[in-house]
């Protein structure tokens, strides 16, 4: 079985999977339909301020699993749907940013700077076209990098890293996430420590479920969905509800500005945008490949680098006054994060952002696919089913890109009305939806209470300026980290210095220390 065989098997797995219906005698696989539905839903969700891709992914997951069950056949349709949401939400986020000056997703903030001025000039349609073109370009570029890099990196990891090095690499990733994600290493470490602690309740190797206070409620540990959704979504809902209650400020309507009819982008205009898109796509992809640094930073950096270049060109209007180049730079940068973010997921099993967290959650819930280096293992003549799924996922991403290029723009431009849904009505519904979806998975009221409790924790962390993302990533990796360390310790015959027993692990540990020390010295900007 060569690599190309797996690529082909992956493509077949998508196109020849279980049939949904047949069109003119050709069977349409359910995975294709799911990608399309996820993609359209993603655009709608991204266009709605107050909703975000990860939220939709989280809520869709239990429904999808009830439909498709816990068989390996479920992996591609379910994850295809989630990937569709991820990509749709990325382009959808630009819609309210451009039309109403309210970013649909946090990383679209920079898009408002030039997008809304264009709307006021009557060029809204054109701005949306620029956003769509740049976003789709950045996304596609990033996916290609992912497909080329992830298998290679996984093979290197699998071949050269032994258990102690794997433990050291996990520690390095966690330290990196804690250090870069917020503008305070201390707060990053606090978030990390809390996440690990939550992961260690009820788990462990002894038969007594540790830290369970001798209760049955805690003995099974915290359900993953309750912790992740609680901190990421319920916490966010609480914060925004408080903001709305405090402000009670009614949304300013954009009024009815007469919009120009001629909205096509000419070839010359596109050529003019390309350097900005290309540069931002590279910045976004590089940032996306590192776990923990989000698309917001990518957008900021992409915009800043475009600004320098644009100023030299001396064009008008100035950036910030409605220059298409500003939109292009931002959207290309934040969209190119999503594909590259799956590099650490698929090659190391380490999630870098919230969307990746939900993809891992889906894989774990369904079973039969464990993101990590073992996915890309060649097994001689036997077929490695996980590798087929991985290439199936790549195929799903490319199909979603194709949808993005063909129908994405039209659909996106029709989604303006979603931005008018009032947030304070939407958010309570999102809360009930989240709690119900968790109950349906866990079927015990305790899970709902855990979710509320972690929601309060997420709320408190946000109010104290502590980023919740290291918490979530540490929670997901906590068990893995402990087990790898235990196994490394046992495998080396109980060597207490197993973390510094080889050149590679010494390198990883030295990097860990220097990241922490360096970020203490250098105050950073642009927090997530």
């Amino acid at each position: 079985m060569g690599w190309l065989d797996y690529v082909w098997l992956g493509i077949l797995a998508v196109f020849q999977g279980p049939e949904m219906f047949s069109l003119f005698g050709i069977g349409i696989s359910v995975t294709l339909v799911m990608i399309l539905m996820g993609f359209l839903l993603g655009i709608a969700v991204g266009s709605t301020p107050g909703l975000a891709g990860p939220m939709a992914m989280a809520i869709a997951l239990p429904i999808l699993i009830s439909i498709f069950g816990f068989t390996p056949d479920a992996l591609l349709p379910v994850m295809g749907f989630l990937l569709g949401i991820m990509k749709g939400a990325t382009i959808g986020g630009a819609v309210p940013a451009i039309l109403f000056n309210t970013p649909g997703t946090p990383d679209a903030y920079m898009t408002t700077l030039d997008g809304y001025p264009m709307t006021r000039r009557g060029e809204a349609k054109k701005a949306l076209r620029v956003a769509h073109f740049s976003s789709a370009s950045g996304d596609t570029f990033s996916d290609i990098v992912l497909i080329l890099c992830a298998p290679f990196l996984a093979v290197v990891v699998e071949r050269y890293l032994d258990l102690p090095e794997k433990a050291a690499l996990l520690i390095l990733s966690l330290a990196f996430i804690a250090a870069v994600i917020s503008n305070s290493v201390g707060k990053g470490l606090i978030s990390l420590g809390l996440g690990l602690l939550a992961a260690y309740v009820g788990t462990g190797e002894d038969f007594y479920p540790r830290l369970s206070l001798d209760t049955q409620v805690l003995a099974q540990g915290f359900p993953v969905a309750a912790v992740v959704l609680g901190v990421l979504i319920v916490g966010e809902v609480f914060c925004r509800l408080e903001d709305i209650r405090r402000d009670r400020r009614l949304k300013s309507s954009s009024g009815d500005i007469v919009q120009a009819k001629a909205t096509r982008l000419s070839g010359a205009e596109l050529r003019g945008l390309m350097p900005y898109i290309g540069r931002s796509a590279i910045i976004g992809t590089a940032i996306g490949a590192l776990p923990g640094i989000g698309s917001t930073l990518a957008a900021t950096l992409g915009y800043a680098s475009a600004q320098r270049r644009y100023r030299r060109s001396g064009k008008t209007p100035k950036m910030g006054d409605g220059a298409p180049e500003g939109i292009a730079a931002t959207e290309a940068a934040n969209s190119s994060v999503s594909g590259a973010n799956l590099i650490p997921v698929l090659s190391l099993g380490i999630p870098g952002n919230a969307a990746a967290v939900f993809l891992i959650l889906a894989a774990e819930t369904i079973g039969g696919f464990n993101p990590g280096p073992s996915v890309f293992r060649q097994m001689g003549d036997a077929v490695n089913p996980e590798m087929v799924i991985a290439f199936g996922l790549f195929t799903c991403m490319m199909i979603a890109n194709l949808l993005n290029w063909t129908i994405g723009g039209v659909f996106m431009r029709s989604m303006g009305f979603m931005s008018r849904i009032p947030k304070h009505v939407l958010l309570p519904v999102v809360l009930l939806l989240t709690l119900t979806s968790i109950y349906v998975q866990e079927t015990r009221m305790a899970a709902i209470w855990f979710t509320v409790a972690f929601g309060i924790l997420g709320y408190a962390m946000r109010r104290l300026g502590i980023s919740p993302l290291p918490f979530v990533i540490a929670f997901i990796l906590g068990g893995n980290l402990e087990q790898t360390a235990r196994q490394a310790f046992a495998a080396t015959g109980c060597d207490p210095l197993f973390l510094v027993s080889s050149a590679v692990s010494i390198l990883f540990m030295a990097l860990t220390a220097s990241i922490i020390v360096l970020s203490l010295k250098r105050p950073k900007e642009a927090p997530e």
Partner: protein
Amino acid sequence: MGRFNRANLALGLGVAILGLMIATIWVSMDTASGLIEKVRRQVTIGDALAPTAAAMFLVVGGLLVAAFDRDDTAYRVSVGNLAFVTSLLILLFVSLALMRWAGPLAAVFAEGGYRPLRDTAPWKYIGFSLGGTALVAGLICFVERRLSWRAIWVALVATLALILVYDLPFDDLLLPPNGDV
């Protein structure tokens, strides 16, 4: 470099002390094996080591916040925040209690109680629809600072939609609270 910031000092030291207490009291008393232990003549890592390390992250993180963070990263929790959380919790508590107990209360006089009925319409919807409506409508009114019929309509429609999405198509999914009763 600014001076020490009081908010950061309080947060940092508070978290550091919390971490120490977790490590010395909770972890050490609530795990079955120590940091390391000897099993089958092999030294192994015990169940207390990982949580202790996690607690140490809290201590180190807290001390770093107290010592290195400056004014620009300081956040305070206000009395307003606490009041908001308290009212929110009361609201959640009431509506979730309604969700949990409304069905069993309604079935008090039914033969065999609520349990055999937990997967039978309309019984199985009583708790969820009452509790869910109360939750959504309560939150909307709380945020709007006024009662409105619109809030109740939105809540009813949302709850109904959830029943349509989760319960009708799937036999083996249970709406709250039907897995507990």
